[in-house]
């Protein structure tokens, strides 16, 4: 920055010094976090292994575990349903965020889906299939959400310029809005595809409950 000191803005910028003490425990904290996440991930992997191995004792422990988790979650009603829609519908997530209704995403996927087992009366096999399915789509939903956030940021940039009475490139704005519309359509298509796959794992009575659950203003029509 020194070479451009004659620039008055850079003079201002260069005055902003920031220096903090290093956190001597940062590595430890990071490794602890990783380790606890690993255990949560290992738990999910083991569930899958046990399923194929058919270990009776392990399965019994799982069922007890799932029952405990279900007990914790079953009273949460619409809170978890809204949280679920945010998980499988990036557009819903963006809208929930703008309504200040974004739910936390803590806990492992098994914990976050445990309520489904109770509400839809899923068998253990069905539950594990659905956990795998949700895992395989989670990354794509997150990516679409990130894209939508990026486009909203771009839109906010235009809004900021407009407020500052700066010139706006209307063609660029149109492109952003068009891209956002396409992204929302892609998101809707992915959510619909996902819902159809979930439904294919369910019995007819479970399917009706599930589809009524995911039918919301911005949730996909299945």
């Amino acid at each position: 920055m020194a070479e451009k000191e004659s620039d008055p803005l850079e003079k201002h910028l260069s005055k902003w010094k920031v220096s903090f003490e290093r956190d001597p425990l940062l590595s430890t904290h990071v490794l602890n976090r990783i380790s606890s996440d690993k255990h949560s991930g290992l738990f999910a992997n083991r569930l899958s292994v046990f399923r194929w191995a058919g270990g009776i004792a392990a399965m019994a422990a799982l069922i007890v575990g799932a029952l405990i988790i279900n007990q914790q979650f079953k009273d949460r009603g619409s809170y978890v349903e809204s949280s679920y829609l945010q998980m499988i519908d990036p557009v819903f997530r963006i809208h929930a965020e703008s309504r200040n209704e974004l739910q936390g995403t803590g806990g492992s996927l098994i914990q976050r889906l445990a309520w489904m087992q109770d509400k839809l009366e899923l068998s253990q096999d069905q539950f594990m299939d659905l956990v795998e399915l949700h895992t395989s789509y989670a990354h794509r939903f997150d990516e679409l959400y990130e894209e939508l956030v990026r486009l909203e940021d771009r839109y906010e940039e235009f809004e900021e310029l407009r407020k500052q009475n700066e010139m706006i490139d209307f063609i660029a704005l149109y492109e952003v809005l068009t891209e956002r519309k396409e992204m929302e359509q892609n998101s809707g298509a992915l959510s619909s595809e996902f819902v159809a796959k979930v439904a294919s794992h369910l019995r007819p009575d479970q399917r009706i409950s599930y589809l009524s659950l995911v039918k919301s203003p911005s949730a996909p029509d299945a």
Partner: protein
Amino acid sequence: MPECISSDQALMSSLKRGDTQALKILIERWESRLLQFIYRYIQNESTSRDLVQETFVKIYQNRMRFDEKRSYSTWMFGIAVNLCRNHQRWLKRHAEAPLETAPEPVEGRTPGDQIDDMEDVEELTRAVADLAHAYRVTLLLYYYEEQSYGEIAEVLGCTVRGVESRLYRARRLLAKRLGLNSVLNLKVSPGWT
């Protein structure tokens, strides 16, 4: 593994093979810069420290997706930028404490000069905090982290030309807020550097 000669890419390769010692070295190497960047964006020390920690956790979680042909710093700043943006969006919906401004006194200046500097810095930090996400990131990465246009483009997922115009606009918006008319009157193209 001798710390001083291992490139960031080599450390990421080790991390992919399960060597958490490599992560410790990366933390050691990048903590300060990352904290400075995030602090300038968020302007709250405690939240910035949390986000630094979160950045390194994400680095570990996404280690298999890192391409050793890419720049590590660009990838790392990309993760940090996303976390800052998410935090900022959350903050918007949950308006809370005001920004924390703690400008450091500049050595070798008279007390009067230092007060002037601190006032300038307070004004500057408020102006930076008011910038839209992409302008803020562009400005901070360019001036304080010395990232190139190409690297910033990679972080923001836009073109180099997009970075040029964002930097140009960010400068104008800041100059306007700070009353720096000489900057506003500069008839420069977006590629002013």
